[in-house]
């Protein structure tokens, strides 16, 4: 075999590498093409004037507020739920676990429709009439986002708690901590990076939530107009420049969130 010849094994290795790299290049180019198409569709001046328009600023503000509230509520609820599923054995755990996964796989529109149906039942009407109005109102946006993202938060946090060796908690107990105290002093500090990453991901998901929101609260400008609804309304009125500007806002938010997660998960404790 001369120096320029390669063995069969090396050739196969090259073919495999070429195949995977080609797939990678195809997908990357696919997304870059879509982004470039949007850039080509608008210009800087139109983009800036659209972004600072009253309606888009309202959508940004409403999305930021509702997504943040929905994230806080879902994380506060998801932490004990995820801990219970991860660390506790109880009858019917598989069924509960599957039930909590359903919102991840069910279409958000279906979830929104289910919420709408619920508020047409006697208990739902009772809540609407006596506690708080959700249908076609801003609290409904938070509820729709919460319904979609809470299951995701539970799933992410459960995998974080699964990764924490129970012996840390056991040592904490022998060092004088009650079960509750050990959760706050040992488990949560160990889960810190996972909790932060879950917050960012669920928040980003809430920012982009459309299906459940539009079904429950409708698409009313200057009332229930979140960023995704703003895109929907812009396209419905053939205002593509505005849609592109709002899409860029969502892309920037997603990119920053993903970058932050990469930074945080890169500093995970070796547990």
């Amino acid at each position, binding site marked *: 075999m001369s120096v320029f010849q390669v063995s069969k094994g090396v050739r196969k290795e090259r073919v495999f590498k070429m195949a995977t790299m080609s797939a990678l290049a195809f997908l990357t180019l696919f997304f870059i093409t879509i982004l470039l198409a949007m850039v080509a569709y608008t210009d800087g001046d139109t983009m800036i004037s659209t972004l600072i328009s009253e309606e888009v600023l309202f959508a940004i503000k409403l999305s930021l507020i509702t997504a943040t509230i929905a994230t806080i509520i879902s994380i506060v609820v998801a932490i004990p739920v995820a801990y219970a599923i991860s660390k506790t054995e109880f009858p019917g755990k598989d069924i509960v676990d599957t039930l909590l996964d359903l919102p991840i796989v069910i279409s958000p529109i279906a979830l929104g429709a289910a919420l709408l149906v619920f508020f047409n039942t006697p208990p739902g009407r009772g809540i609407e009439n006596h506690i708080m109005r959700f249908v076609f109102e801003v609290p409904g946006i938070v509820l729709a986002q919460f319904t979609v993202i809470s299951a995701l938060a539970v799933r992410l946090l459960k995998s974080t708690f699964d990764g924490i060796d129970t012996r840390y908690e056991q040592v904490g*107990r022998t060092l004088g901590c009650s079960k509750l105290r050990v959760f706050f002093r040992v488990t949560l500090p160990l889960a810190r990076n996972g909790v932060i990453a879950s917050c960012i991901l669920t928040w980003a998901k809430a920012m982009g939530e459309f299906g459940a929101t539009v079904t429950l609260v409708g698409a009313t400008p200057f009332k229930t107009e979140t960023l995704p609804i703003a895109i929907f309304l812009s396209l419905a009125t053939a205002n593509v420049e505005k849609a592109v500007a709002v899409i860029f806002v969502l892309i920037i938010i997603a990119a920053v969130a993903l970058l932050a997660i990469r930074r945080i998960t890169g500093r995970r404790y070796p547990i």
Partner: protein
Amino acid sequence: MIEIRNLSIDLGEFSLKNINLTIGDREYFVILGPTGAGKTIIIECIAGLHRIKQGEIWIDGNNATRLAPEERCTGYVPQDYVLFPFLNVADNIAFGLRQAKYPKTQTVEKVKSLSNLMGISHLLNRDTRSLSGGEKQRVALARALALSPKVLLLDEPLSSLDLQTSKYLRMELRRIHKELGVATLHITHNQMEAEEVADRIGILNMGKLEQVGKPDEVFFHPENEIVSDFIGAPNILNCDSCRTIGHGIAEVTCDGMCIILPHDGGRIQKIALFPRDIYISDVQPPGPQVNRFKGTITNIKSSGATARIEVRVSGNTLQTEMPRDIFEDMDLTVGKEAFLILKLRRIRTFEGKNSQ
């Protein structure tokens, strides 16, 4: 003092069967047993990490069976130490003190004195993830001792360390135990480790405590076949005479074999040596002929990776053991002459009732 009464527990893969054991106030007790014997469960039961349905655990005169782990006053050092990665060394040691709301000055002083005792005062600001195995062990020990526990529970504390560090830390564990005098339960599968640190040893097999006694008693008088198999059936020689020939050195005669060994106590009645601690050669080794003997091979058993060779020396038959591949490279056959070298430091002595 720890008292375990009729403790039985079944955790599926591991179980304990009717364990009865008392560990004295200043005693260093080692539970020795093979992997899967249930050693860790005993420690976890004492620490309160399993709900006990049958039996009782008493700590310092109080029934601790139904107490939560935080109410038991135990210091627990798990295998691999499990230091909190989000705290530095000083904060790890101070963890228990802070939970118990010790005043800040007292906490600082306690951390300082414990780190001095463990020889880790230069590590206090270090991230625990950057420590060596030996350093982690000391930090875990300091953390467990910070609340002045009534019982110290050590779960295979030396198993993840290299041989040199492990040997050194055995001495350190004894020193720390002597200084603090806290009742200590240490579990291990390493027989040498157990003999070096223990006041008494308990042999645990398949969840059952087979024998409890001083290391010499267990070693020279195994109560049943399980214990005998586990400790490895040593060569035991009866000594006809024993005389001191210098400071800390004695000479014993065992049926025609004159053996010199380190010894400080009274008259030696028996000596023992494991087959693995006797070297065998087909040629006469050079050097002084102390503890070296010529004999005749009477039997060879070769199974698995090990070869066992029986050699008749004077009136004794000694078993030696060596890796099979080395044995196959040597010219050793039944009936041929062979030369034995006894490992001086591995010879164990028994003085009867007054043994140490």
